């Protein structure tokens, strides 16, 4: 199994930390992992993206341009990354602020209204974990047990009290993900 993922959205949406938690969880589950961020000016107020690879084998290149899954959190990222999903792959997006939804017919498309749900439940801080939950519902590349271990390892100790809320957000994401188009 090799899962090549791009996560893209605005800086501040928790794109990089979602990738980090996913990578840590994979590492805890004894997988090979890599986490390659966009860095520099585009992180400051603009778009942010990170590619994460989780694999049972040694990872050849952490730098990739085509993905098994794209997790998309704004229109700009959708415009940029819809075309980079491999045929037969997965595109998961948050419809908030997306006025031109994805149109491809050779990939599986899902949506998760994470922004809406997070504000409804007052869980804005763990918005990204709702998205992560939705992804894991579609592609269970790591098991829940290891998400908890990944959170323990990636969050500084002073934030460990937030772990139950994070896990609850993952559960929420799993239940609200919707199929838009399936092959």
């Amino acid at each position, binding site marked *: 199994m090799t899962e090549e993922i791009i996560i893209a959205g605005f800086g501040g949406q928790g794109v990089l930390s979602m990738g980090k938690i996913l*990578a840590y969880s994979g590492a805890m589950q004894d997988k090979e992992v890599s986490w*390659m961020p966009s860095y520099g000016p585009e992180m400051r107020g603009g778009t942010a993206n990170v590619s994460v690879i989780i694999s049972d084998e040694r990872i050849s*290149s952490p*730098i*990739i341009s085509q993905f098994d899954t794209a997790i998309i959190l704004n229109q700009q990222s959708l415009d940029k990354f819809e075309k980079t999903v491999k045929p037969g792959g997965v595109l998961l997006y948050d419809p908030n602020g997306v006025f031109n939804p994805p149109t491809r017919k050779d990939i599986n498309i899902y949506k998760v209204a994470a922004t809406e749900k997070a504000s409804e439940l007052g869980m804005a801080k763990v918005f990204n974990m709702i998205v992560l939950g939705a992804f894991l519902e579609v592609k269970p590349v790591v098991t829940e047990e290891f998400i908890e271990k990944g959170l323990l390892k990636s969050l500084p100790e002073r934030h460990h009290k937030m772990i139950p809320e994070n896990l609850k957000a993952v559960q929420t994401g799993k239940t609200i993900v919707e199929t838009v188009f399936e092959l």
Partner: protein
Amino acid sequence: MAKELKLMKGNEAIAEAAIRSGCDGYFGYPITPQSEVMEHLMIEKPWETTGMVVLQAESETSSINMVYGGAGAGKKVMTSSSSPGISLMQEGLTYLAGAELPALVVNVVRGGPGLGTIQPSQADYFQAVKGGGHGDYQMYVLAPASVQEMYDFVFLGWEIAFKYRNPVMILSDGAIGQVMEKLYVGPHIPRWTEEELRKNAPWASCGKPADRDHNIITSLDLDSAKQELHNHKLQAKYREMEEKEVLFETINCEDAEYIFVAYGSSARIAQKAIQLGREKGIKVGLLRLITLFPFPKKQVAEFSKKVKGMLAVEMSAGQMVEDVRLAAEFRCPVEHFGRYGGIIHTPHEVLEALEEKIIKG
């Protein structure tokens, strides 16, 4: 001894390795994409545990001269920077080489020339292996291609630097500096005691006991006859490195008809291009350079007798390719492919270049 698993950025791995390898001092000045080296050191506060000095200097010029001072006293000292900062250090590097001082210098390369861009590049190859500073000198140049190698090469760097009394450069790039991968770290190696330092670096200028002459650290000798002899000695050292210290890795080369030659992040990208190529039935392998100086001339020469062509893949307009061509001596076609100015080539582009430039050639 059991090794501990971490998930770290390449830059953080450099810092972690510095602390764990018994480094005495780090002197640096922040610059993207390598600022996490000093950041990690400042978070870890090794001065409270191992006694290692971490100092943010007022400039790169200052950092490299602090390194010169520490190295002259036999200490394990290092600095890190990125391309424009490394340019500022060139005077210090040639002085270190001339005065035969061990030191570790990390360059996490970004696109140039000038201030260029903060995105990854491999366009500092010439600067690292062909001089950069003035005079006939060489640094030992290591090219890590993973976070684990960023860590491991700090340890190897000290070994070579002190064995040959010569500066060692770790030539990385923004991608390997920023990527986070699994890292296995070993136990802490303590810093040298004063006794160990005097034994391991008897040439160091660290206080003269009564029973020996002054140890003098200098690169200056106005007597040209002596300076030529000194140069002979340096050259003999470089030839010995070429004889004994070449490092490389071959991947999928057993049946290869074509060879990618690459280092650092381009070598990782080339590995993915090999997978894509082999899915299409193209028998392609990779010669991954681990040392850039000394360059694996013999290995390139051997391949050039066996394969139909080689593609040098590097994020530059074509630098390492010159050394590949020199070693291949026209026995097979050698072409270059690379994006540059901060753009990273994709595995698909690399494979396409092989098909266009070599296979159809």
